[in-house]
């Protein structure tokens, strides 16, 4: 047994970790124990990538099968990391359509969590660009699933948190790009209303996201920097610039767990103030930035999860339906600022409709906050959850480590349909993760 945790380092649990070298061996691993789930690069924050008993590590499966440079379609093994795709195919003029805030996630993980990026409001999530996938079900079959073929399995697997089986391969569409540069425009806003208006105004931008200063209070509550972005063409690059910038490996890494005292209301306040001012200075005119800092600001600090110390942290990401969102978000932010120890990166963005049955996105606003794991934070987050549920919202499973069954059930009304499909693919219940045990597996006798 090995002690394993997600990126948030809570919870830490015991599981067997297997590293199969062939698809047949993956099949054996799944068949051999009741309670297996596949794990990509371990960037899910909580317990989603940890098997109830056994965890199948997929990063060894990192080959491309074929690539069509005309259409940008590619067939991949599920363990290929998005960073690898970007490094390899970026210089050839293709990028993933959708990337989350880190590039160190696997293709299989990106499908299982139906990850969203800064373009979800207009272009949808990762699953939208999956044409088909090869799935090893709990029943022992290997099936190809697409929108036409085995479509139930397809839509349950996109956003299904690995619970329909092990994703072995996928055919996805890449986005043709002329350069690896983003034309960015920063808008600084003085409060939450202005931030939401700016996001609404940014609906036509390909990429939009807001960073909220969650230390600002009173009339400044919700003051934000809105980052809008478009892919830049070759003609926009300064003379002599490389069309495709290099994404450096994390140069600066956090070598050890920082003592939890490092993060306190004073250091967070100072950081937020500085960050806001620096961003506000850049507001207005658009400028070019490399895709790496634009999409993956935290990737430049290796092991940034250690900033939160040994006990780890909790990420709380909810989505609130558009109608009435202003009041609920204001209420949440007020409680968070009053508490004082939250989040040196709070992110607000608009989402569109999700594609999978259990996909997190719904039309509305999503707010992501992180909290050091200490004190009464669990109780505090339960309080926030009640506001989310009352507003008809839900929490993102890829980042969750602690929501209750009731919160989950209220947020995911399609759960019964998902369970029925899962049952048909895996009648004996071979595929189970710590997350599924916590949130919806029927209690085992």
């Amino acid at each position, binding site marked *: 047994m090995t002690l394993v945790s997600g990126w948030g380092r809570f919870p830490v649990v015991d599981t067997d970790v297997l590293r199969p070298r062939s698809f047949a061996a993956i099949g054996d691993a799944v068949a051999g124990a009741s309670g297996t789930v596949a794990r990509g690069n371990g960037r899910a924050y909580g317990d989603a990538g940890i098997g109830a008993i056994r965890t199948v590590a997929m990063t060894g499966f990192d080959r491309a099968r*074929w*690539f069509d440079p005309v259409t940008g379609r590619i067939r991949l093994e599920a363990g290929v990391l998005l960073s690898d795709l970007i490094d390899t195919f970026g210089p050839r003029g293709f990028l993933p359509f959708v990337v989350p805030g880190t590039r160190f996630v696997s293709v299989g993980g990106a499908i299982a969590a139906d990850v969203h990026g800064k373009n979800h409001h207009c272009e949808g999530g990762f699953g939208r660009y999956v044409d088909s996938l090869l799935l090893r079900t709990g029943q022992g079959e290997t099936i190809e699933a697409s929108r036409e073929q085995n479509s139930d399995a397809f839509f349950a697997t996109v956003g299904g948190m690995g619970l329909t089986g092990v994703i072995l391969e996928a055919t996805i569409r890449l986005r043709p790009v002329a350069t690896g540069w983003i034309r960015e425009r920063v808008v600084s806003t003085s409060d939450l209303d202005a931030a939401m208006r700016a996001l609404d105004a940014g609906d036509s931008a390909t990429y939009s996201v807001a960073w909220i200063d969650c230390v600002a209070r009173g009339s400044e509550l919700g003051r934000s920097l809105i980052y809008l972005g478009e892919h830049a063409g070759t003609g926009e690059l300064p003379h002599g610039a490389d069309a495709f910038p290099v994404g450096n490996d994390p140069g600066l890494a956090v070598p050890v767990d920082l003592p939890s005292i490092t993060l306190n209301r004073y250091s967070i306040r100072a950081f937020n103030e500085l960050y806001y001012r620096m961003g506000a200075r850049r507001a207005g005119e658009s400028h070019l930035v490399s895709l790496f800092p634009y999409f993956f600001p935290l990737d430049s600090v290796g092991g940034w999860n250690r900033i939160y110390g040994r006990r780890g942290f909790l990420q709380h990401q909810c989505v609130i339906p558009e109608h009435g969102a202003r009041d609920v978000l204001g209420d949440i932010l007020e409680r968070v600022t009053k508490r004082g120890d939250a989040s040196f990166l709070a992110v607000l963005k608009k989402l569109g409709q999700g594609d999978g049955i259990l996909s997190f996105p719904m039309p509305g606003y999503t707010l992501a906050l992180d909290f050091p794991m200490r004190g009464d934070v669990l109780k505090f987050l339960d309080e926030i959850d009640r506001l989310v549920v009352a507003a008809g919202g839900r929490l993102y499973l890829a980042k969750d480590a602690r929501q209750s069954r009731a919160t989950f059930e209220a947020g995911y009304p399609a759960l019964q349909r998902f369970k029925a499909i899962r049952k048909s693919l895996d009648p004996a219940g071979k595929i189970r993760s710590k997350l599924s045990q916590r949130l919806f597996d029927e209690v085992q006798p």
Partner: protein
Amino acid sequence: MTSRKTVLVLGGSSDIARATARAFAKAGYDVQLAGRDAAVLEPDAADLRARYNVEASVWTFDVLDTVSFQDFVSGLPVLPDVVISIVGLLGLQESAQSDLDHATTVMRSNYEGPALILGLFAERFLARGTGSIVGVSSVAGDRGRASNYVYGSAKAGFSAFLSGLRARASRGGVHVVTVKPGFVRTRMTEGMKLIGPLTVEAAVVGEAILNAVQRQTDVVYVSNKWRLVMLIIKALPEAIFKKLKF
């Protein structure tokens, strides 16, 4: 297309081989992958074609089957510009102490086979007047250790072979690289206790080999820390060394 260079990777299915093939393909080389079971290599060849738009072919090669070596070399449609031997077998020291078959296999896999096949390529390269030969040896060959001297001694022999070959071949325009990777996170070392700061990913080894060929380096310790570690270990007097639990 005729100006494209070709690299031959012997022992093609290992993690280091995969990473090395990727590094060369990324740099524009066509790749010949050779291993015991060519069919197993086909997905890796497809990966190289898809990623880097290069030619990639697979070939059957068994390092223990030395009688087949001449035919193997003659059978390649293109004499490669670079040949890399990544063949190796760690084996089990304890078994090798009493099981002669196992010891023989370890010795032949790490010394006899790699040395003979690279020797054959050296003759062809010298006749042509160009080429690079890369042997992946090991820091374990720098000094015999109680815990793995069967493997280590074979690597020592291989290192000595490469250094002699380098001295001779350099006069004929052929360059020989000795690579000593140290700890690498691969299938071979899975489950072993590795020292974090001294351990590298296979991709780092692949890049280091490509660099060594491009810069004509003679001996590469993949992590420079290893050069220092082995310098110290080599300098220890035997009287002290034999008492160390190492």
